């Protein structure tokens, strides 16, 4: 079967810094795929390249039959047109709209949904799924805790009913229990809504346990890949990422 997201031989530079070097990987429909790697490995850069926030200098990214990005910027999809295709990114550091309420953040997540009844229903769904957001719906998201902001960002990304959910370190800086809760919710969304998930994490153990396949990135290159189960047991991963 053809993968939903296919990344082929892409490279991204920041000036003289080579952030991604000939990276290839794929995400199958319905799966949870994880990408792990240390600080500065290039994980966020890869996600930004998918959504058109960083231009490619080589290679291509396709989503089904659609070419998302190539080294020709004119033939690449602009970031504002990514959501229309059913792709949602929960960016690193959450990036909630701090000066807007929980409800308004959800409205923004549904910016392209032009059906008020559907928006209302999706909001109720989110409040059921993340009860704390329901309690805080009129509160500015600036005053939410880190974990609440992360849930806010995930709920906002789900408002457009995406087919592919990209998550950039959803566990960053959160207490283990909250991370666990968030990961369980991600698995639940994947199963019940059939949303394909591409999960970027530094927390290798959590990410590999939650996913079916995994990739390991070092210095802008994929150095290991395979089934998450195998990766969890592999010597390289255990030594480098699991502190064994």
């Amino acid at each position, binding site marked *: 079967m053809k993968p939903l997201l296919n990344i082929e031989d892409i490279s991204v530079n920041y000036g003289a810094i080579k952030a991604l070097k000939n990276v290839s990987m794929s995400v199958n429909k319905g799966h949870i795929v994880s990408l792990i790697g240390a600080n500065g490995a290039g994980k966020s850069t890869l996600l930004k390249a998918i*959504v058109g*926030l960083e231009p490619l200098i080589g290679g291509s990214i396709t989503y089904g039959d659609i070419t998302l990005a190539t080294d020709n910027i004119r033939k690449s999809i*602009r*970031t*504002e*047109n*990514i*959501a*229309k295709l059913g792709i*949602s*990114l929960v*960016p690193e*550091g959450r*990036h909630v*709209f*701090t*000066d*807007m309420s929980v409800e*308004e953040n959800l*409205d*923004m*997540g549904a*910016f*392209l949904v032009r059906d008020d009844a559907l928006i209302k229903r999706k909001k109720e769904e989110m409040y059921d799924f993340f009860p704390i957001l329901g309690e805080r719906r009129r509160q500015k998201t*600036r005053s939410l805790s*880190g974990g609440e*902001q992360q849930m806010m960002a995930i709920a*906002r990304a789900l408002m*457009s009913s995406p087919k592919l959910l990209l998550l950039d370190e959803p566990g960053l*800086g959160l207490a283990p229990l909250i991370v666990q809760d968030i990961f369980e919710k991600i698995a639940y969304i994947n199963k019940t809504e059939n949303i394909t998930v591409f999960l970027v994490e530094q927390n290798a153990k959590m990410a590999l346990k939650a996913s079916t396949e995994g990739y390991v990135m070092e210095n802008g290159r994929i150095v290991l890949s395979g089934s998450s189960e195998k990766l969890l047991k592999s010597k390289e991963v255990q030594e480098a990422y699991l502190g064994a």
Partner: protein
Amino acid sequence: MGSISEFFQHLMNGLTLGGIYALIALGYTMVYGILKFINFAHGDILMFGAYIGLFVFNFLRGDSPLGTWTFISFFIAMLISMIVTGALGVAIERIAYKPLRKASRLAPLLSAIGVSFILSNGAAWMWGTQSRKLEYPFDNAPFTVGGVVITPHQVMILIVSLIMMLALIIFVNNTRMGKAMRAVSLDQDTSRLMGINVNSVISLTFAIGSALAASGGMLIALDFKVYPSMGMMIGLKAFVAAVVGGIGNIGGAMLGGILLGLLETFGVAILGIPPAMKDTISFGILILVLLVKPEGLLGKAVREKV
């Protein structure tokens, strides 16, 4: 005249002046909120709006005496001026600012100063430097309420600025595009991820800011005439109002504008500041606010949660 009615007299005068400052300050603050840049041509956009309003009003009115038609044609002229000036604002952004969006922060600022000169010199070249009178569309004979002398013009300023501000508040808080505008001013890349077209939102911002300036320009022209450099001082004052209120903050621009109008009026009337020194009041307040609360009265000291 008793001191109470005297107080209300100054209040009335201050509120009308402040209402106009607020209308103009909104354009500065909305553009700053999104692009983090001061549109120094805003005062000249206001002047342009006053000219358009003047021409359309005179054309529509023709030889009609004061009456219903004259009154209505003033508001039609205001509407047309707002639309045309809004389009001018959008065009200026597209031509003079957009290409510089990724350049240094200084580049669009210099471009704005250039646009300012082009607009004011262009107006002088096309329409001459003499000032033209924009006639009141009604008999502006003042009336007295409880010892307070009020002109119909003042009443119009209060009503028009109140309606515009309320409409703007409703727009940014309750409509899809208004919320998108706030989102873009908070985080452009994340807004794009939501499917918001940032360029359209920026255009809309310039359209609204310029349209509000056009209405402010017409209101003030009724008292102070229309001439190519009419936007300079009022533009600068409105800018001060935006900074005092907290630049980037819509409520702040409204508050700053009204506060500045009141302080100027009461400063002259109560503190006995000579009218010739009136303009220094605004700039004195600006310096004071910058020293005590640099982010402005309603501005937030920026701190992000990580």
